[in-house]
């Protein structure tokens, strides 16, 4: 009986692994292309797309160009500041809001808020784009500031984060512990920060990754808010390599590789945290 089970699971794991490998290859293919092309001249990229190494050798100059022409380090700092602050603000305040909305879901105000936010996620950004900059730029003149962008990121991101936390809290955060804490005299804020917040680690880690990535790669909103070159984030900076009819592919690829590294590292880091958070939570 035990050996039968082992055989079947071995088989199962074997099939899973093969399937996984094939998928892996398909998923990584564009990346390999980006990486390989970042070391080629535009001429080789166009004429010999599948060639692994350029005839003239590895074009590390693409990276040098990317760093210099994109004003890379300044754009990098801008991107980091905006992403980190936006995500922090978002995670803290939207989880608080989601918690309250779940626990008081009979209140009309809560129902209205949640429905409005839900509906807002279906709105295409173009509907609010011009009105947004007309009001905040043309009338109030608060554009060209990273703070404004961070607060706008917050405003646009609350809906999705609250939505995601809402479902998670409802299904995975038992109310029993909160009630116990309340009886012990804990304040509402205390209950949230000491008990509920740590339990939200899986969904919050997920949100951190998803939103960080969103803000890091975001082009449209920063292009509207950040008019001055000194404030450009990485996606805006990469635009310098785009021409009217054709683009500077080698440099773009190099710039892209440089831009991807931080988020990739963040993801790998946070992956472990999700697991450790779960393990810690399971021992409650």
């Amino acid at each position, binding site marked *: 009986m035990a050996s039968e089970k082992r055989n079947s699971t071995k088989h199962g794991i074997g099939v899973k692994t093969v399937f996984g490998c094939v998928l892996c290859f398909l998923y990584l293919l564009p990346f390999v292309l980006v990486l390989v092309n970042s070391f080629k001249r535009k001429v080789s990229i166009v*004429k010999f797309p599948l060639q692994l190494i350029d005839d003239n050798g590895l074009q590390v100059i693409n990276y040098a160009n990317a760093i210099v022409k994109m004003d890379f380090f300044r754009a990098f700092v801008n991107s980091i500041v905006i992403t980190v*602050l936006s995500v922090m603000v978002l995670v803290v305040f939207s989880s608080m809001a989601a918690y309250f909305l779940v626990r008081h879901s009979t209140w009309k105000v809560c129902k209205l808020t949640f429905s409005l936010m839900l509906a807002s996620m279906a709105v295409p950004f173009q509907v609010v784009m011009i009105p947004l900059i007309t009001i905040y730029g*043309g009338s109030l003149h608060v554009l060209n500031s990273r703070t404004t962008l961070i607060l706008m990121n917050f405003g646009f991101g609350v809906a999705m984060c609250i939505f995601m936390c809402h479902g998670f809290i409802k299904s995975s955060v038992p109310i029993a512990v909160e009630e116990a804490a309340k009886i012990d005299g804990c304040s509402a804020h205390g209950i949230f920060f000491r008990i509920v917040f740590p339990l939200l680690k899986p969904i919050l880690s997920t949100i951190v990754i998803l939103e960080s990535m969103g803000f890091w790669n975001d082009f449209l909103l920063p292009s509207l808010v950040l008019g001055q070159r000194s404030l450009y984030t990485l996606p805006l900076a990469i635009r310098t390599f785009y021409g009217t009819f054709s683009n500077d592919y080698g440099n773009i690829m190099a710039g892209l590789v440089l831009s991807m590294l931080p988020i990739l590292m963040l993801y790998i880091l946070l992956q472990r945290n999700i697991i450790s958070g779960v393990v810690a939570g399971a021992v409650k």
Partner: protein
Amino acid sequence: MKKALLVCLCIAFVFPAFANGTIEQSTTVKSESSVSSEEIAQVGGSPFSKTVAITFMNSKPEITEALQAGCKAFGEKYNVEIELYESSSPGDALAKKYASGEAPTLAIVDLANIRDLYAEKLVDLSNEPWVSLGGRELGALMNGKVYGMPFTIEATGLLYNKTAIEKIIGKTFVPTDYATLDAFKALCTELQKGGMKYPVVLNSEDWSVNKTYQWIYAYQDGTIKGAIQFLKAVHDGKTTYEDNAVFQGVMDTYDYLASTNINHADPLAADYDLNASYVAEGKAAFWLNGTWAWPDFAPFAVEGMEYGICAYPINGAPAVQGKAFGAATKFIMIDTVNSSEEQKKAAKIFLNWLVFTKEGQDCLVNQCEIVPAFSNVALEPTNPFNVSLKKLINDGLLAEGVTYSPSDHRSVLAAPLQAYLAGKNSRMDIAKLLDEYWTKRLPKE
């Protein structure tokens, strides 16, 4: 402890966030001795005592570096800080900038953009010194006033690889000899016999396909007036495209070009850069494109090969035979709404500097590699396409370009012609679509 660390981290990050970006205002006081009085008279102003900062939007990303160098040179002399930024579609970029109250003081834009903006947003440049030197003829004229300085003249036509052609036909290639479709066909047959199986290259992009229509308009009689007359006649129902000999002639040529297209197996999969490489290296001889293609063409250009631009071959239209068509395609505008008087003055001086001073002209012609619109600029163009274009202008072989297309021409009509290239539409379909389109719209004047 963790909380305290978190708070410290927050503070460390928050401080830079509150630092709003401002243009570094190095308010140095300049001495005026570095600029000669002659030059001051030419540009209409002397260096500013306090640094003036202006923004400059460039919709021709290919020339950004050259332009930046020029701006820097100008800026150092006249104490003006020019912040240059790019955009590949000026229309929506400007709409957004005006909405947010941050319009650039200077901007390189298309004619359509000036048409939209001049009424309320642009400075009237009719009294500038360069207007009489070609600014009026080629500039952006709205209601009789000049609102845009013509920046560069570009021509649409057949780009050709002279060396590759001459290698096969064994004699000098004179483009005007092949201005009719019949002569062109004979040439291509010779080229095919000589090993160039597909001598023509066609693009698939919608903006390029859209330009094919412009041959129909420009070749009516080679003038803007003639084209507008024709379009108005269509609008009033007095004539149709089917009955128009020029339409039939242009489409005859297009059919032939498509049959000898190196991308004929999959015309819509054509890659712009790959197309450039075909002609640059001599695999094909002719590319239906325009002189703006040089920056993308240059990486593939082979040392020692000669290139040029020539006319679209057509039968039965002696008035326009041998002519490519061209016009000023980009204009520089000065904003009046979001810019101070000082900034506007600095902008005007910059424009004069470009046209009248040696360094400005060098920036225009040698660095940015454009063909200027002004008669006082004596510098010869540098890149092969522009040299060829200058020759066409001197020989009187440049027909007037298409400046009267409504703004939705491309979005409505480009796709059907792409379908035509792929064999999904017939010539009658295109004629009917054109009739329908122009019955509902008038050419923009």
